[in-house]
C-alpha cells in the first residue's frame, strides 16, 4: 500500500499555519501592486487605432470613378445574419449595374466579414470603425450615404486583404 499523506500539517510550515504572517506578506504584495503603472486607456480621449486586420463595421468602397459595387447580391446571399439588402438597377456607363438601394442593418450584423470575402469586386470591406451608437432601431439601418467611404480611408484594410486573403 502506497498511501500519500497530504495533511495541512505536512503541506505548511508552522508559520504558514499561523496564517497571520502570510496575510501580512499578501498585504505587502497588494501594496506594491498599487504603485505599479496602470494599463487602462482613458477611452474618449485616448482612442485605439485598430490594425488593418480589424473587422469593424462593413462599408462600401468609393473609387475615383464612383462606387465599386455592381449589386450582384452575393454579400446579401452569404450574410449569416440576413443583415444586407441590395436592389440592383442599370446605367448607361461601362459598368452597367449599380445598387439603387444598399442597406445593412447594424443591429443584425455580426462582423463576420463573409460579405467582404465573397465580394468579387472588393467593393465591401470591413472598416476600422468600432464606435456604433444608435438612438432607435430605424437609425441602426445604414443606407448608402452612411456606407460609402472614400478609398483613401480604407488603405490599411485593402493592403491587408491583398496580402492575406
Amino acid at each position, binding site marked *: 500500500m502506497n498511501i500519500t499523506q497530504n495533511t495541512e500539517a505536512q503541506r505548511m510550515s508552522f508559520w504558514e499555519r499561523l496564517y497571520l504572517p502570510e*496575510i501580512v506578506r*499578501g*498585504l505587502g*504584495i*497588494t*501594496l506594491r*501592486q*498599487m*504603485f*505599479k503603472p*496602470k*494599463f*487602462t486607456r*482613458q477611452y474618449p480621449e485616448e482612442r485605439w487605432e485598430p490594425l488593418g486586420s480589424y473587422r469593424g463595421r462593413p462599408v462600401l468602397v468609393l473609387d475615383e470613378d464612383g462606387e465599386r459595387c455592381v449589386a450582384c447580391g452575393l454579400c446579401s446571399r452569404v450574410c449569416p445574419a440576413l443583415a444586407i439588402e441590395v436592389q440592383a438597377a442599370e446605367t448607361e456607363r461601362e459598368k452597367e449595374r449599380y445598387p439603387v438601394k444598399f442597406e445593412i442593418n447594424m443591429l443584425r450584423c455580426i462582423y463576420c466579414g463573409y460579405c467582404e470575402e465573397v465580394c468579387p469586386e472588393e467593393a465591401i470591406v470591413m472598416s476600422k470603425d468600432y464606435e456604433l451608437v444608435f438612438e432607435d432601431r430605424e437609425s441602426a439601418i445604414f443606407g448608402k450615404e452612411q456606407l460609402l467611404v472614400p478609398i483613401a480611408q480604407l488603405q490599411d484594410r485593402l493592403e491587408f486583404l491583398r496580402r492575406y486573403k
Partner: protein
Amino acid sequence: MADFLVQLVIAFVKAFLVVNTVLLAAATLVYVERRVAAWIQDRIGPNRVGPFGLLQPFADVIKLYFKEDLVPALADRTYHRLAPLISIAVALSLYAVIPIADSIIVGGERIPISVAPGINVGVLYILAMTSIGVYGIVLAGWASNNKYSLLGGLRSSAQMISYELALGLSIVGVVMVAGTLDLSEIVARQKYVWNIVYQPLGFLLFLIASFAETNRAPFDLPEAEPELVGGYHTEYSGMKFGLFFLAEYSNMVVASLMMVTLFLGGWHVPFIPDLPQWLGLQEGSVGLVLFQAGVTLSKTAVLLFFFIWVRWTVPRFRYDQLMRLGWRVLLPLALLNIVVTGALLLFLGSV
C-alpha cells in the same frame, strides 16, 4: 425647563453635525474603496465625475434615488421595509457615545463633543447596539422570501453572534486597564501610553472580530456574491439597497473609531502628546477641538484604508473555517488575554 431646552438644542446640533459627517464619510469611503480596489488590480477606478472622480458617490446616490423600488411579490412588505431602516438607524446611533474630541468651553460652560456625553457605560452601549444591527440583516433575509437572502441572513446572525463574544472579551482587557467604561475617560487616560502597548493581543483580537462584525472581507460570507447572489440584500433595490450599503460603510467607520478610541489613544498625538500645548492651543478652545478631531479622524482614516486594503488581499473564508476561527481560536485567546491582564494587574498593583 430653559436649561433642558438648551441641552436639547446642543444635543441636536451635535447630532446633526455627527450624522452629516458620518454620511459624508461613508460616501467618501465608497469612493476610496473603489479607487484602492482599482489600484490594486492595475486599474484607474472612477475618475470622471468631478475632480479625480470625487463626486462619484453623489452620482451613485442620485442614481439610486431614481431607481425603481421593487418588493418581491411574496415578500413580507412590512418587514421588508423595516429591515434597512433598522440597519441604518443602528449604524448611525452608534456614533452618539464616541468621543471625536475633548470638550469645548462656551461662556464658561464645558460642553463635551460626543452627542451623548458622560454615559458611563459607553462600551456596553456600543456592544448592545451592534447586536441590534443583526436584526436588520436577519429581517432583510427573512422578509425577502428568497432562499439566498435567507441563507445570507442566517450566516450573518451566526457569524455576528460568534464574533461578538471575542469582540466583547477583547474589550474587557482595555476596561480592566482603564478602570472605566466611559469612552472619553478611556481616551483621556491614554495620553502618554496607548492601550495597544498594554493590550497588543486584545487589539489584534478586536481588529479581527470587527472585520467579522462589519461583514467585511475575509469574513463577508453574508453577502458572498459568488454563492449567494447578493446575500441578504439580493431583493433590495433603489435607496433601500443604498441604506444597507451606507449602514455597512458606516459600521466600518464605527469599528475604526472604536479601535482608535480604545487602543490607539483617541485624540492624542503619537510620541509628542504635548504638541497642542506647544502650539498654544488653549484647553476648551475651538482650535484644540478641531485639532483633536483632526487627529482622531486621521487615525480612523488609516484604519479604514487598512480595512479596504485587506478586503482586496485576502480571499473569503469558508463557513466552517470562519466558525472554527471564531470559537476555537479567538474566543480562547480572548479569555487568555483577560486572565493574563488580570494576573499582571494583580501582581503589579496597577498600570
